[in-house]
């Protein structure tokens, strides 16, 4: 099942490339099946360890195995990715080829979360870049070349040290293979660990994104297709937190010990810095880009605290932000469809003619700024509880962002929907958009009101990481 779940989207994407006549319905069907599979996998999960594990020798001499498996975090993120892909192909008005790239990218993302072999992880981590670049290449804005250049440069240059570190981890650690179980049983220690960790750090900071390596993100979002689909997929591609949690920290706990101070500082500073910058964002995509950096700063602060609460908070916030962050981009796509512009400053007063759109936007906005009862809050709270134990001051700095978030989000929202004096006549949600709205709001509420559904499976992971990292809590 896990293999089908992983490769089906790629296959469907390739079929769709060859036979574009199959259209959106085909993409939706594929995405729905994917979501169904991930839910079945979730329902069948026992609650402990890596489930659905399988390994086939791939290059046995080199110690590379095609090994898959899902733990609690992997499952949460599989569901998040599959859900967002379904929402995206359901709602975004894009050419069929665009949908095909989306499906292909889904396989890459699922692979990142399911890979139990470091080489395969690296493969998925890098390969996902290709559909993402293709979307930007074919459907991006006028200034897309610079955005592609920046994005590719940050990602590829960042990955080189990680590749080196991957070999270091295997061969200096003395593991027999690149399998997670082997590597984790032979963690690097001391100076080597801190150097190898640095290699991972650069690559993963780009994909977290962590200040100051977030610099590629604004232009990436600004230049992508206004439907928001590529942005939603880009949001899913922010897998840095997961990779730190799954690979970097367990394989090199000493590395986190060495770099913890710096990482906590960058996370906390990035959280408030990005939220502050977002206030000046001239358009919604830039605003959401910085908002995302800010949220990931909070998540990273939780993870780098190295304790159970912080880890659970980071992973939950990652999963939640994949959903509300992506949905927010898709939502802005709906706004663009109506107004033809993404600027934040003009007064549009859309609420008057599109009250349902307004309510959907309100839900998303409140989830984004961490209103309790919606999906953003449980992760933020747990990250706070973890981080406060380790560094109260940095926690204070990072959580200044809750004030800044209210400022940037509500200000832009007010211009878009309220002050009706110059109300723009736009259509309200149509049937297809109602479907999107209903599912989105239901998930925001579910994740906000009943977080235990997922934290139950995240908690053992947090405890394991805390035990591994030790000391700090």
């Amino acid at each position: 099942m896990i293999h089908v779940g992983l490769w089906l989207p790629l296959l469907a994407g390739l079929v769709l490339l060859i036979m574009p006549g199959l259209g959106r319905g085909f993409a939706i069907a594929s995405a729905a099946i994917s979501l169904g599979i991930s839910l079945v996998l979730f329902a069948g999960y026992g609650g402990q360890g890596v489930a659905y594990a399988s390994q086939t020798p791939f290059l046995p001499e080199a110690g590379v195995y095609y090994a898959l498996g899902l733990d609690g975090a992997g499952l949460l993120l599989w569901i998040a990715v599959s859900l967002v892909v379904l929402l995206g192909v359901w709602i975004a008005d894009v050419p069929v080829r665009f949908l095909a790239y989306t499906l292909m990218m889904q396989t890459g993302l699922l692979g990142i979360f399911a890979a139990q072999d470091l080489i395969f992880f690296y493969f998925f981590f890098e390969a996902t870049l290709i559909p993402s670049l293709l979307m930007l290449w074919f459907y991006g804005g006028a200034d897309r070349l610079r955005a592609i250049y920046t994005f590719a440069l940050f990602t590829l240059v960042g990955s080189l040290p990680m590749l080196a570190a991957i070999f270091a981890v295997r061969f200096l650690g003395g593991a027999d293979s690149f399998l997670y179980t082997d590597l984790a049983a032979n963690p690097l220690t001391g100076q080597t660990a801190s150097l190898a960790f640095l290699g991972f750090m650069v690559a993963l900071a780009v994909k977290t994104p962590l200040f100051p390596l977030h610099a590629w993100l604004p232009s990436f979002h600004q230049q992508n297709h206004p439907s928001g689909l590529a942005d939603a997929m880009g949001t899913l591609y922010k897998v840095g937190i997961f990779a730190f949690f799954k690979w970097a920290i367990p394989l090199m706990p000493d590395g986190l010990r060495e770099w913890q101070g710096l990482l906590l500082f960058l996370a906390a500073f990035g959280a408030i810095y990005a939220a502050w910058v977002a206030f000046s964002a001239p358009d919604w995509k830039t605003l959401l880009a910085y908002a995302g950096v800010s949220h990931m700063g909070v998540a990273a602060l939780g993870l780098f605290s190295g304790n159970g609460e912080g880890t659970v908070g980071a992973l939950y916030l990652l999963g939640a932000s994949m959903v509300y962050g992506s949905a927010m981009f898709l939502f802005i796509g709906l706004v663009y469809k109506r107004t033809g512009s993404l600027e934040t400053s003009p007064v549009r007063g859309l609420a008057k003619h599109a009250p349902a759109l307004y309510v959907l936007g309100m839900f998303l906005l409140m989830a984004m700024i961490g209103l309790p009862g919606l999906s953003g809050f449980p992760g933020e709270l747990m990250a706070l509880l973890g981080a406060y134990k380790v560094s109260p001051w940095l926690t204070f700095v990072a959580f200044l962002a809750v004030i800044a978030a209210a400022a940037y989000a509500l200000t832009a929202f007010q211009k878009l929907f309220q002050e009706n004096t110059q109300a723009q006549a736009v259509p309200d949600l149509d049937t297809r958009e109602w479907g999107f709205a209903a599912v989105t709001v239901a998930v925001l509420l579910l994740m906000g009101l009943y977080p235990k559904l997922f934290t139950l499976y995240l908690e053992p992971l947090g405890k394991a990481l805390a035990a591994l990292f030790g000391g700090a809590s």
Partner: protein
Amino acid sequence: MQETLFLPLIIALPLLGFVILGLSGKRIGEPAAGWLASLLVLGSFLLGLVLLLQGGARWTLAEWLPGIPFSLNLDNLSGVMLMVVAGVGFLIHVWAIGYMHGDPGYSRFFSYFNLFIAAMLVLILGDSLPVVFIGWEGVGLASYLLIGFWYQERVNADSARKAFIVNRIGDLGFLLAMGLLWSMFGTLSISELVEKVEAGGYSFTTLTLAGFFLLIGAIGKSAQVPLTVWLPDAMAGPTPVSALIHAATMVTAGVYLLVRHAFILHGDGFLAGLIVTVGLLTAFYGALCSLGQWDIKRIVAYTTLSQLGFMFVAVGVGAYWVAIFHIVTHAFFKALMFMTSGSVIHALGGEQDVRQMGGMRKYLPATHLHGLVATFASGGLVPLAGFWSKDAILAYSFEFGPWLWVLMLGASVLAALYSIRWYVLVFWGEYRGRSPSGRTNAHAPGGKAHPHESPAVMLWPNHILMGGALGVGFMGLPYVIDYKNFIEPYLTKAIGDFPHEKLPVVTEWVLIIISAVVAIAALWWGFRFFQQQMPAWYERFQTAALQGFYADAVYNALLVNPAKGLAELLFVGDKGLLTGFAGLGSLMGGLGGLLAKLETGALRFYLAGLLLALVLLLGWGVLR
């Protein structure tokens, strides 16, 4: 205490109203939507009353987040708050059925109103801090939605946003308090925290810090100095909102939070001094500002600030039950004052400027009676509700230090003055009205104003509130009066008994008589004074007070504008960051050159190469 599913049902009822009215309120229409909302709140009230009479209740959902249960607790303290919120809340709901008549957003209004009640009940009943915080932010959201209820006008939307943002400063304090308490005790359940704090074995300085963080939260929610600025602007919402949220209930949540955590605050000299200072400053600031306002709702809003300051002083001097007692009496007389104001606004077709009022006692006899009682209760006239709770605060202040008693007596003189000023300008003298100002109000008939008395649906809630403003004070009589004080032992059972030295009988009597006489004198003097032409010194004072002593201007200059400026600067700087990386690349010589070549065509080449390599790798693996 029983474990019962009826407890969450108290919250579920208004929440259900929010959902139903939110989804299909338009179809339910007027006035059914309003009655549905009101009856659901009444249901919460009755259910709460029954459970309270059975000795309270608890409900726990084993775990909500790792280590954090979702638990509710109905004890005497949360019970009293529940009675106020659902009871007064019900009356204001009913009143709003009349007041909101004809508004295009009628059912939306009641949907939000029910959301507020549900969130407020979560805040009150929550037994674990994250649960309290859900309610805490929930009422903030409801407040935001209702202040900006008529968001078509920019000023309303701005006020709503301002309230939310300023409140978030307080919320940060709440969040940090949770972080600190979690790191100290490993639990956020309030009942467990009580035990752990009692057990000792921690640093008292750290506990002080926890209290300080909670205080920041309370200051934000209760609009104390220095976070007062959002409350006056919050009057942009419909009048029932001002009465319910920004007078009777939500703004007292900060006081409730502190009282709930009395076990953290008590005996801490630093926190006591700080809370008293904050309360005193707010009591005076609110009172002085109120004396300079022309907008009838802003007059009352600032009086609320002042009364909240009284409650903070009560908490600071350790008179926790008194703080709650004052919340109760205040809920009655301030809701009455607001709704009386609303009835006047209603009668005048949306007019809010008191200079266009006057003489209302002739046109609105019933409303006049309500206004009179509200004035006397708020001004501290013997033996109305406001007198007894204020008197208890004064007595405790005297124990804290006679100087504090003197200051608080000064603040109560101002309270008498602003109450009577409101009364004189609205009800006394002759009607100075003109045609309606044409505000966004459904009642503006267009044409000349004919002040008309409110319908029964608005009068009856006020009758009941008037009864409360007259009578509820008698449940907390001072001990020197040989009659049972009901509320003190009732509340201390839940808050914890913090014994204090009672004042000697003679001293207490002297204090009571002084405060009674002073209130009467101030009311009488004010009654005469505010009928005259204002002297020049008052006009000068008024100019400053009208602007809230320029608090907004100072904040804009010192905080808001610099923050916005910095945001601009950072935005430009962040773009520069990318240029910086590009420069770094060039500096690295060969690498920079190589990377530059990747641009355009070369990048395509690179990608093709990457793809090819991946395919080869895969192929080798499969075919080998």
